[in-house]
């Protein structure tokens, strides 16, 4: 039995705006084991993005508990949260979130900048990752000179460079056509095969069908949590 990398127990989260409060997550229980490839599905407003933010230590929760790799994550200082994000988590976003005035290599190398890796070393490592993703020739291009698929591959390279335990992907294919979507999913699968846990938030069945476990959220509760029988052979 593999260790659980993510474990949440009766997790609650509400948003307050003035007098009104919005109860987004209503007591979630979830355990994700190391090396799993999970998709979290749900319509907008189901709380899937909120869950992802909490898992990524980008947001705090109100009640319950969250363990990341066995560590209890509570309302920690920004500095500590930044350190954990840098060490344990890689993000892939729908809108890529690359820094526009930095070239592909610099974008990929940025997480290592915050680990105080020197410039030469981190650029070297960044090039290795770009090479793995077939983008070595594009290393010195700015994001604006690249296609959507290329940008997302760069974002994936950036999320991988700090050798995280978990990749959190928020609608990673949302801005891509189906062909490139498939490519990106193939890459994420490859990443998963190296032992990194991948969690994808999506509302597309086609994407979730490529993961081994599908969690459906509805109005802040888990509606279903099923192993994807179609691709069980992958595990």
């Amino acid at each position, binding site marked *: 039995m593999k260790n659980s990398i993510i474990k949440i127990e009766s997790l609650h989260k509400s948003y307050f705006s003035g007098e009104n409060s919005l109860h987004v997550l209503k007591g979630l229980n979830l355990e994700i084991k190391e090396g799993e490839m999970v998709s979290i599905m749900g319509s907008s407003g189901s709380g899937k993005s909120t869950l992802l*933010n909490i898992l*990524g230590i*980008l*947001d705090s929760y109100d009640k319950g508990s969250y363990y990341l790799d066995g560590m209890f994550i509570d309302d920690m200082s*920004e*500095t500590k949260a*930044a*350190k954990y*994000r*840098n*060490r344990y988590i890689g*993000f892939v*976003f729908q*809108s890529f*979130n*690359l*820094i*526009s*005035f*930095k070239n592909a290599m*610099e974008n990929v190398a*940025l*997480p290592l*900048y*915050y*680990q105080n890796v*020197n*410039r030469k070393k981190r650029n070297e490592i960044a090039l290795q990752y770009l090479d793995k993703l077939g983008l070595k020739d594009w290393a010195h291009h700015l994001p604006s000179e690249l296609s959507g698929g290329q940008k997302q591959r760069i974002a994936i390279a*950036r*999320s991988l460079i*700090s050798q995280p335990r978990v990749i959190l992907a928020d609608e990673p294919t949302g801005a891509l056509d189906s062909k490139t979507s498939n490519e990106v999913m193939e890459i994420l699968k490859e990443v998963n095969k190296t032992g990194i846990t991948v969690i994808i938030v999506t509302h597309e069945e086609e994407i979730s069908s490529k993961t081994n476990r599908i969690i459906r959220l509805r109005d802040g509760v888990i509606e279903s949590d099923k192993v994807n029988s179609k691709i069980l052979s992958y595990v």
Partner: protein
Amino acid sequence: MFDSLSEIFSVLKQNKLRAIMTGFSVAWGIFMLLILLGSGKGLENGMRFNFRGSATNSIWVNSGETTQSHEGYKEGRRIQFTNEDYTAIKNEISGISNLSGRVYLYDSAPLTYKDNFGVYQITCVMPAFFGIEKMDIIKGRFINDIDIKESRKVIVLSQPIVDTLFDGDEPLGAYIKVGGIPYKVVGVFRDVMQRDERKSFMPITTGQKVFGQGNRIQNFAITTASESLEENRAIEKEVRHLLARRHRFSQTDQGAIFIWNTLENFRQVLGVFTGIRIFIWIIGIMTIIAGIVGVSNIMIILVKERTKEIGIRKSIGASPWSVIKLVMSESLLITALSGFFGLLAGMGVLHFANMILQSIAAGNPDINSYFHNPSADFQVAVTATFVLVISGLIAGFIPAKKAAAIKPIEALHDE
């Protein structure tokens, strides 16, 4: 270090024009501060130039009439100094470096050389007077001790008198008649200030004997060995007390003798300039504050524009401190760099102004009394640099705090 620098430059390059415009306001502040300080220094130097004529730590003692009755004497009594007062001051008061009694001969004695004559001020002094009033001896010597001892009939003339009376003849060793009695010219001088030059000097003993002054002395000129105002005041007081005792007038009688302390006066004038300098600093700092507000403003806008980028940085592991460092060092770099240019420009303008002033002063020395050697010294440059660094940090502080407070989730949805 180099890493964070290149990180900053890559951002600044995004907005070259904006960085330059912002920098300009800071450069302008520093430039103005420097120009103001330099001008203030020029005025001050002009004033110092005026004080160059006599030692700044000199005390002049003149006699007057008593205004208070004291020890049975009625008020309105005239005080007359004598040689004995000179000896008493010399023997009893310490801390004096030069002491000279003076006797003035005004229009009583015209100077005559061959067919030329003129009426000039003749001051009968002691050798020590040379250390009190600053003058350049062009030829020969000043009055010496043997002149005093033997009451020699010698005279020291200023260059303008020589020019008027001698018609190109060699003055040194020549005889000139003063009130009909021949005196040997032993020296020619020029006043350092080049003002009031129609003066001549002869030994005080000669003046007293020849012109029937007996042992009288009209006033004393003193320079002290000390640069401190307190010690000079103490000496001034001692002199007053000594003379009060000898001449039996009240120590508090302000009319009996008049004492003019140039150090005090000099210090007062310097005090005015200290005031001016403080005023200039205040104006300068205000100007710089305007620059700081400008930088701060731009940085806030910049941070707002970069909300998303900062959010990305935070999501991949940038700590709040590293974000603060990023913004602060950016503002520091803009201020420091542009301030440095302002500093250079200010120094350059001052240097140029000084060159022009010097060329004007070559033809018209009067200008030196008003404005002389405007410059910002090393200390000012160091202080200005310090002000710059501080202002850079202040300018960056609010934007940096704003940047550090950015929440990554909100930033990432900021399209």
